[in-house]
Every structure is written in structure tokens, then in C-alpha cells.
């Protein structure tokens, strides 16, 4: 019963936040329209930039909505969800989700989207390349080319970085405390990269 109440409450809060955001975007657009008509170009510009940020945040929340609630046996950390938009597109949209297990295993998923800085980096990541580093390899995650790196700290804890570039966006999955490479790749493949890319682009 408690769970149902919690879910209903969370749903109401989500609907309310969406409604508030919609009102904010509407208000920003009205503000931009009025400023532009009155010849206040700088005011119109500022309002449009603010509206764009709000739209970015809405996109980020949608992305969080389609990400899996669980990665392997690690559930998501509700408080770890984060969406941010750089006010002027310098870093673009930033989405973060954390997964934690009872044991030492943990995962962090970060998506940096629509950033002009990433276009160059992604072009390099997407290129086939030869590397002599035994801890680095190219894999496919949900049919997207990705770069996988393995590292081990002084305590012997293995961690994995998987970078998936798409367009001017980059998804990074960091997994710690899991030794088996196949398990890590399997976890990465549960992320709907295709849907995320469609939402962002």
C-alpha cells in the first residue's frame, strides 16, 4: 500500500513539474515575442536562450525516463538523477544517472549532448584505429561503435569506461567492481542508445 502511495505521489510530482516547466517555456516565449515586437532585441535574445534551456531540460528528463531502472543487479539511485543545461550551449545538455549495488559494484551513466565541443572528439572515437593498448578495445553497444577501456586500481578493483559517440553527443558508462568484461558489455547493451539519440538529435 505504501509503495502504491509513493508511486502515485511521485507521479503527481512529475506531472506538476512538467506543467510548471511548460508554463515556464510558454512564459519565456511570450517574453521573447513581446521584447522582439518592442524592438528590444537583447531582451528577446535572452528570453529565447532561457526558453532553449528549458527545452533542453525537458529533453533531459525524457532521456532519464527511458533509461533502465536497473543495470545488471544494480538499481538506480533516485537522488542521483541529474539534468543540467549550460546556459549558452557551451557544454550542451548534461544527463546523469547512478546505479549502486549492495556490494562494491557501481555504475555511472553520463550523457553530454548537443555540445559543439564533442563533434571533433566523436569523429576521432568513431574512426577505426589501431591501438597497442591491451586495456582498450572497440566494441558495439546497441549497434553503435564504442570505445571500451579497462583499468585497475592499486586495490585490484577493476573499472570499465565505455564511450559511445553519436552526433555531437557522447554517452559514457563507468562501471566499477565487476571483473567480467562480458557482463559489462551486456549491461551496456541494455541502454537504449538508439532512443536516446533520437530524443537528443
Amino acid at each position, binding site marked *: 500500500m505504501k509503495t502504491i502511495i509513493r508511486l502515485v505521489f511521485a507521479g503527481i510530482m512529475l506531472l506538476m513539474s512538467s506543467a510548471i516547466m511548460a508554463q515556464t517555456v510558454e512564459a519565456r*516565449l511570450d517574453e*521573447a515575442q513581446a521584447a522582439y515586437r518592442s524592438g528590444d532585441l537583447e531582451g528577446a*535574445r535572452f528570453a529565447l536562450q532561457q*526558453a*532553449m534551456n528549458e*527545452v533542453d531540460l525537458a529533453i533531459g528528463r525524457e532521456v532519464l525516463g527511458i533509461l533502465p531502472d536497473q543495470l545488471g543487479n544494480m538499481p538506480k539511485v533516485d537522488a542521483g538523477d541529474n539534468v543540467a543545461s549550460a546556459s549558452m550551449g557551451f557544454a550542451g545538455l548534461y544527463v546523469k544517472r547512478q546505479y549502486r549495488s549492495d556490494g562494491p559494484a557501481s555504475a555511472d551513466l553520463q550523457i553530454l549532448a548537443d555540445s559543439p565541443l564533442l563533434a571533433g572528439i566523436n569523429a576521432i572515437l568513431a574512426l577505426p584505429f589501431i591501438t597497442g593498448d591491451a586495456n582498450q578495445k572497440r566494441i558495439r553497444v546497441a549497434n553503435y561503435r564504442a570505445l571500451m577501456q579497462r583499468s585497475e586500481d592499486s586495490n585490484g578493483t577493476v573499472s570499465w569506461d565505455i564511450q559511445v559517440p553519436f552526433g555531437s553527443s557522447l554517452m559514457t558508462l563507468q562501471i566499477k567492481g565487476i571483473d567480467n568484461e562480458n557482463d559489462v558489455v551486456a549491461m551496456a547493451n541494455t541502454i537504449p542508445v538508439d532512443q536516446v539519440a533520437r530524443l537528443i538529435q
Partner: protein
Amino acid sequence: MRMVLSIGLSAYCNFQTFRPSDFQTFRLSDLQTFRLSDLQTFNNYKHMKKLLLLLGIGFLLLQAGLADLYGQGRLLRRLQDEMERRAVEEIFGKEEERPGTHDTGNTSTTRNRRGSGLEQSIPDVGLHIDEARSSYASGSYSPAKSALRQALWGVELEMGKQVLASLPEAVGGMTYVEKDDRVSSTGIGFVGMLIQRRYAGKDDMELNLSVGNDSGLFGLARIAAASGLYMQDTEQPNHKQIRFQDHNAYIQYDDYDGYMLSVPFGQASILMLQGVNFDTEAQFMSAAGQFNVQNIKQKLGEQ
């Protein structure tokens, strides 16, 4: 060769017992009397003289021989090349090179000969705002963002045009080149908006104006300036900090680019002037003085 090497080795081993004055007593006939067995009695100075001289002569002969061989080889190669070229010409005839027929590596035979470029359309800001509104309301966030970008570009284009219209048409005997007026923006703050104008027409002089606005990079430039990065330096006399129309500014000179004045203003804007082929700093600053920073600031809505 074996003898030269042996002598060299032995001479090195016995160098401490050799005196330079021994060269004075050397006779050419000594060369004829030299034997390898002499190495075994190497402790006397007389033999040492012979050995050193032989070493020197041997080295010179070796050098001369190698140079001669190298020269002969080069001559032979040239002769061979020339003979091959003549043989090919004899068989296939001499190829006459026609002007404009150089092989550029481009195999395409079709070149564009028509086309009137792209249609320049100014974004309808109001229309794009309405489009963004309806897309957002229907939950299509990506199209909403695209429409917002277009609206933003439309506003920035108008701002840029207003700034260009407020600039002088002639500066220091040069007039502005209308076709080079440019307003560019990525619609994002990383690069921001860039307004450019070029003045030319007086001898080989040129004045290039750039106004950057709403850019994170210009904000960083201000931080760098505030931290003293551009302070005057006696070691680098080609740049200095000055005051320009109540703003801190930086002027620099280099032989390739000429004079460059940078005036950061507002929160994240900058005015840059580049003067090419100006005789003096005073002449360049006189031209720069015809631009009103306050006016540009006002047009951009900067504080």
C-alpha cells in the same frame, strides 16, 4: 687497410710516448722501410713518426678514393638516365607538353558552370517562436529546439545588422567593403555572435573590424586580462595595455599582421581592430578612435 688500422690502434696505445718534434726528422724513405713487424718494437720514437705519417696518408688516400668512386657512380647514373630517356623518345616519339594539360590527379571531367548560390533568407522570428511553442506543447522537443535556434539566429542577425549600420562608412581614407560585411552566429554561446567589417582602398592599407558578443570565450579573455596576463612586459615590447574610450584595452604589433587593438567591453563582448600597413601606432590609433565603443555596446544591449 689492415696496416692502417693496425697502425692507428698502436699509435693510440703509444700516444703518451710520442713527441711532436719527431715530425722534423721524418724522411720519405722511412715509408719504404716500414714493416708490420715494426709494431712490435713500437716503443721508440722513430717508428712512431712513420706510423703516424702513414696513418695520415692512408686516411687521405681513403677519402680521395671514396670521393672518386662516389663521383663516378653519380656520373654513371646520369648517363644511364639520359640513355633511357633517349631510348623511350626514339621508340614512342617525343611527347609535346601542351599548356594546361598538367595532370592534377583530379579525374572528374564535369565542372559546375551554372548556379546562383543559395537564397539568402532572413528568419522570421515571430513565425519561429510560434513554431517552437506549438512543437513544445505537443511534446516534440527536438523540433521546438530547432525552431528556437532559428528564432535566435533571426534576432542576432538583426542585432548584427544594427551594429554594422552604426559603424562609420569611411575610416582614415579607407571605405568599407560592403560585400565583406558579415554577421555570423552559431546560436550558442561558445562562439557567440561575430560581426565583421573590412575597410580598404587607400594604398595597401586595410582595417579589419570584428565585434564578438555573448561568447564564453570573451568572458575568459576578460578573466585573463584581469589576472594580468596581458600586462606590459619590457621583454616583449610589441604589446601593451592602454585605455581606449574609458575601457582597458590591449594593443599589439607584429611584422606579419600589423597592429591589433582588442577592447573587451560589457559582460562578454570584445571589439577587435586589425590595421595592416599602418606606418605608426599613432596613425592606427587615430583610425581606431573613429569607432565608438559605447555606441556598439548600446546596440548589443551590453552593460
